[in-house]
Each structure stands twice: as C-alpha cells, then as structure tokens.
C-alpha cells in the first residue's frame, strides 16, 4: 500500500514542478500583461496544486493530517489565484495599457466601448 502512495506522490511532484517551470517560462516569453497573466495564473495554479497534493500523498502513511492540510492549502490557492489575476487585469486596463491585437478585425476589443461609456458617466 505504501508503494502505491509513493508512486502517486512522486508522479504528482514531477508534474507539479514541470508546470511551475512552465509558468515561469510563460511569464518570460509572452508579449504583454494579459498574456503573461494567462500563462502565469493557469500553469502555477495547477503546478502548485499538484505538487502540494503530492507531498500530502507521500506523507499520508505517517500522519493523515498532512493530506487534510495540503487539501486546505490547495483550496486556498485555487480560490485566491484567479481573484488576484482578475483584479490585476482590470487595473491594467484602467491604466490604459490596452492589449496587443494582431488581427485586422475591428471588433476585437469589446471592452473599450463599455469602458469609455462608463468613464463619461463618471465625468458627468
């Protein structure tokens, strides 16, 4: 039985650390803030979740409380990471750092219109 937990834990550790590395690489390579947020948030969330659960599985034989506490940390990470990235994306749009748009289509930035309407209402 302990062999099974060890295999599961080791596999989760490897997967998690690879995704954490990919999150760093995504932040390094992407061209603007929004794309960096996309890569950073998704990859580090799954990476952190998987690595922490892996540690929980490795120690569950000695003390089952490790798995419970690991699950709590995972839940907190899964709730707090998207909230902070959402707040940051909105703040960057309000600082007028508009996203890079490569295609020729004119409707690609649907938020600009709503944002300017809101601004007018605030001024009036």
């Amino acid at each position: 039985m302990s062999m099974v937990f060890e295999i599961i834990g080791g596999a989760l550790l490897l997967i998690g650390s690879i995704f954490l590395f990919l999150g760093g690489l995504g932040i390094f390579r992407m061209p603007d803030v929004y794309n960096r947020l996309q890569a950073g948030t998704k990859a580090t969330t799954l990476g952190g979740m998987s690595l922490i659960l892996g540690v929980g599985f490795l120690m569950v034989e000695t003390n089952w409380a490790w798995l419970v506490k690991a699950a709590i940390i995972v839940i907190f990470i899964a709730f707090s990471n998207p909230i902070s990235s959402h707040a940051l994306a909105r703040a960057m749009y309000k600082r007028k750092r508009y996203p890079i748009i490569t295609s020729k289509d004119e409707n690609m930035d649907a938020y600009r219109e709503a944002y300017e309407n809101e601004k007018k209402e605030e001024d009036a």
Partner: protein
Amino acid sequence: MIYIIYISFSFMIVGLLLAAIRFIKGPTAGDRTVALDTLTTILVAGLVLLGYVFGRYIYLDVALVYGVLGFIGVIVIARYLEGAL
C-alpha cells in the same frame, strides 16, 4: 525518491530565475506584479516541499499562512493602480 525531489527543486529554481528576470525587465508596474504573484505561488509550493524534506508537520502552517495572505499584497497593488485604494 530522493532524485525526484532533486529534479523538482531544479525545475523550481529555473522557474524562479525566469520570474526574477521578468521582474527586473518588466516595462510596466503590472508586469512586476505578475512576477511577484508567480514568485509567491512557486515559493509556497517550495515551502511545502521543504516541509516534506524536514519531515515536521508543524512546518506546513507557514505555507498555509503564506497561501492565505499572499494574494492580499497583489490585490492592494492592483487597487492602487486602479486608483481606488
């Protein structure tokens, strides 16, 4: 088993290095804050892994506190950038 932990730490260090480079290079305040957010998540995972290496249950509490509080800094910076602090 010990080699898996070594490999995990090496991947993590490379990820930290890339995020730190983005922190120094990043043209706007937003990029630096993204880098801070990524550093926080990677280091929380690193704290849990170090807790496994030391083998003490009480060490997980530090990672828990950092996971709960870590995003407050990012949200406060975002509110400041938005002009609504």
